[in-house]
């Protein structure tokens, strides 16, 4: 019996040692806040679009303000998001201008990722800022590439150093691709038809040229997938619609 007991003790010890040896990820401990705010606002980096799993092009910058709207430095900010979204760093204190910057990478599945940046006041009350980013799958990503090459000059109101927006030069203003109010109401087949045959063939502005002889069918489908992915308000999820019982 005594021997059994010894063996039991030995096994438990073995167990304890193996347990202690397993790798534990280091837990980041943020410094204690030196100040508290009463509001949190977005400075930049909201509503970005990136391939699934990728790092967002721009870091997300938030600012903590006090009740008077003045920036607060040294306030604690924490980012939280669904599984797959990674923040670098996930928590920390605001800098001298009251801002906190985090590099965000999205999860591996395409779709909309909602995440929050939060701060606390002295009483522990939590102020939350809701943020969103859109992850694109392969087809939507291809659509984005094509859109930037062929469509964005007219359909994107923003100019960049490489590309001046032509939107204001047109007699009929094109719809921005994110204009869900309008584009969500147009069926996939109609969008494909507009892109392929141009505006004139569909009794719309001739300023929209036909792309059916320039782009392949797959390319045009990718463009539609991209338009659906970035729609604001979001395009209703594909799939069967069920009768409510």
């Amino acid at each position, binding site marked *: 019996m005594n021997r059994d007991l010894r063996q039991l003790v030995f*096994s438990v010890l073995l167990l304890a040692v193996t347990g202690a040896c397993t790798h534990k990820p280091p837990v980041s401990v943020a410094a204690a806040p030196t100040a508290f705010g009463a509001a949190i606002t977005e400075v930049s980096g909201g509503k970005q679009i990136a*391939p*699934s799993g990728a*790092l967002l*092009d721009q870091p997300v910058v938030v600012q903590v303000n006090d009740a008077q709207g003045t920036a607060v430095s040294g306030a604690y900010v924490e980012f939280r998001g669904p599984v797959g979204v990674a923040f670098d760093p996930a928590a920390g204190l605001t800098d001298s201008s009251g801002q906190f910057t985090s*590099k965000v990478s999205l999860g591996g599945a395409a779709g909309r990722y909602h995440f929050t940046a939060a701060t606390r006041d002295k009483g522990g009350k939590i102020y939350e800022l809701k943020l969103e980013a859109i992850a694109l*799958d392969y087809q939507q990503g291809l659509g984005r590439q094509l859109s930037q090459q062929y469509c964005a000059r007219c359909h994107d109101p923003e100019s960049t150093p490489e590309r001046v927006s032509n939107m204001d030069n047109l007699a009929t203003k094109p719809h921005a691709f994110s204009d869900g109010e309008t584009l969500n109401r147009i069926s996939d087949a109609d969008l494909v038809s507009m892109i392929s045959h141009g505006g004139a063939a569909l009794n719309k502005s001739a300023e929209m*040229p036909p792309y059916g002889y320039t782009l392949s069918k797959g390319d045009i489908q990718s463009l539609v997938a991209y338009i659906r992915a970035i729609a604001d308000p979001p395009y209703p999820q594909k799939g069967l619609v069920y009768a409510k019982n």
Partner: protein
Amino acid sequence: MVLGLAVAGWLLMAMRPKLGLVTRLWSSDSARAFGVMSVVLLLLLAIAPAKNHFSEWRHYQNQYRGLIRSRADAVSLQRRLQPGIQQIWMPEYGVVDRCTTCHVALMEASLADVSTQPFRVHPPIPHKLTEFGCSTCHRGQGAATTVEEAHSSTKAWEQPLVPAKYIESSCGQCHLNNLAGTPQLNYGRKLLAREGCVRCHLVRQPDGTQMTGTDAPPTLQHITQKTTREWIYAWIKNPQAYSPTATMPNFGLSDDDARDVTAFLMAQSTSIALPGLSDAKPAAAKSSPDPTAGASLYGESFCASCHAVQNAAGTLVGGDLGPELTKIGTKAKPEWLGSWLRNPGAYDPETRMPHYRFSEPQIATLEGFLAAKADPDFVANVHLPDATAQQIAHGKALVNEYGCASCHAINGIRRPDNFAPELSRVGSRPLAQLVFAAGMRHTLPDYLGAKIRNPRSFGPSLKMPQFGLTAQQVDALTTALLALTDRAQSQPPALRIAAQPESHYDPAGPAGQLIRDLRCFSCHQINGRGGDMAPDLTWEGSSAQPKWLADFLKNPNTLRPALTRRMPKFNLSESEIKALSDYIMTAYQDPAFERDSMPASYAPALVEQGRQLFYSKYACQSCHIVDSAKDKGYVGPTLSQVGSRLTPAWIFQYLKNPQELRPGTIEPNQHLSDDDARALTAYLMSLTGKQLKTHSATTAHTQQEVGR
């Protein structure tokens, strides 16, 4: 798992005395013993079916049945569900994938709203899953039938799933060309060639070609003529302090090492005869650099097409083909600047900078303008004693040790072979061969990322220098490296999609000499060779009218007033212009159509018909300007003088199929009838710019060249 083993071990040890009992029992009552053993054996036999019954995949398939039960298309979903272990087998690829055993709904489009794994629908890709398998792209152990073993994302397995971030690397195993859908992979490959990686690391592509650098590291053979030892010292200590966009990495040299390297570089430098450097220059031309004249000459010569300068706000303005010039006056000696502007090829035959035909006063003006762009603080604190022979010898040893000659031409140092580890199969490197730094996740992508981001984090004595790369660039490079797998190298060549073959086109004769001297290939592509900054000139002889081409070569400033990146004025002589334009008109013709097959002028009725088509049916004015007072379109080039620029046959062919003549142009193919195309050609040929004022009303500018 550990707990189970420990308990089993304890039980076995504890049971040892009892085993004696069994043997005693056997000898005393064999019938009873036989009964006991039968029961034990029966129990043991039951383990296998029990394990099968409680297996993970069966659990997921049952869960899936529950999920689809309440859906409208439950019957068809149920019918398509294949129970049991499923397998995609591709012998030629060595792929045995049982992933579809649990991932049962990969191709069920009606389940697009389901976001729980393993029942998610696979996003649309250009390949059929049943023909390409899963582990081909996602890696992992395809034959495994448990979650842990198949994904092995938690352990240092040889083949864990590749994170979504790097998934484009899998495309690159077969696709050696650039795909529109893989921007990250394309960028990574470009960076491998541009950031100097392939100058030290051998990267042999699966098709056998070796990747070569597309950057242009300068020769150091005559460095004393170009710059001072103090500048070299400050530069190699921290290149990014001189120019944030510098490609040269930081080797983290100590003060003494940097001193000795500069001592050696100065000592190995030889002098060569440079244009204008030896002869006494007119004093007047040299002494009075006029800043306004310099700035306007810098602008007129379109130096900004290739070189960037920091503006007052600290942002870089200009191209990135040549080095940043913000502090060029600190780096280059004024007399060297002058000789370089006279003929860059005399100092560095490999340079991409064209040989401008500047006049002596122009050189003096530009030399003064550039020399004034100085930041004395950069070298203010550098005080170097005279070099000793010992320092020079030590410097030479350091230059060999750090492989400087992998990039730069240096006298007395041979370009080292296999200086750094070969990366041709780095995407399949076994984890057992890697030495991870403390605190790192033990996966290959993490290892590669960390190695690129901060090489010396693996040990301060490592030779690989610190590159100033952004997080996105590190991810892109990791993706490109992960594509270099064993599978990519060893698969049948028929499965590969070939890369764009490298062109070694070299124009012949005196015109070819001129084309090389003017470095046309730095910006233009001809017959597959050259840069992509300016239009492809392969068919230029078919598209341009001879007189226009000659005028344009003489004074290129007239074509696109609003572009920031433009063709520089080379100040060519009449005979040079004639040689060049004759050659272009003869050699660069599209064999698909006859250049002079269409008349240059048309009946007014046809011109009017074309005008109406232009403005109403095809609304060309949404992108092109003909009448700058009325038209506003700003996507394509201005067409107000197109009738004296392009040939009618080219216009006609181009309207019929733009992508045929200029692959990738965004001009849409409108599928025009011959009649419409002829009418539009008639209208465009009537636009010679003579009756219209050509003043451009647009103030916007674009750097993107659009096909003409």
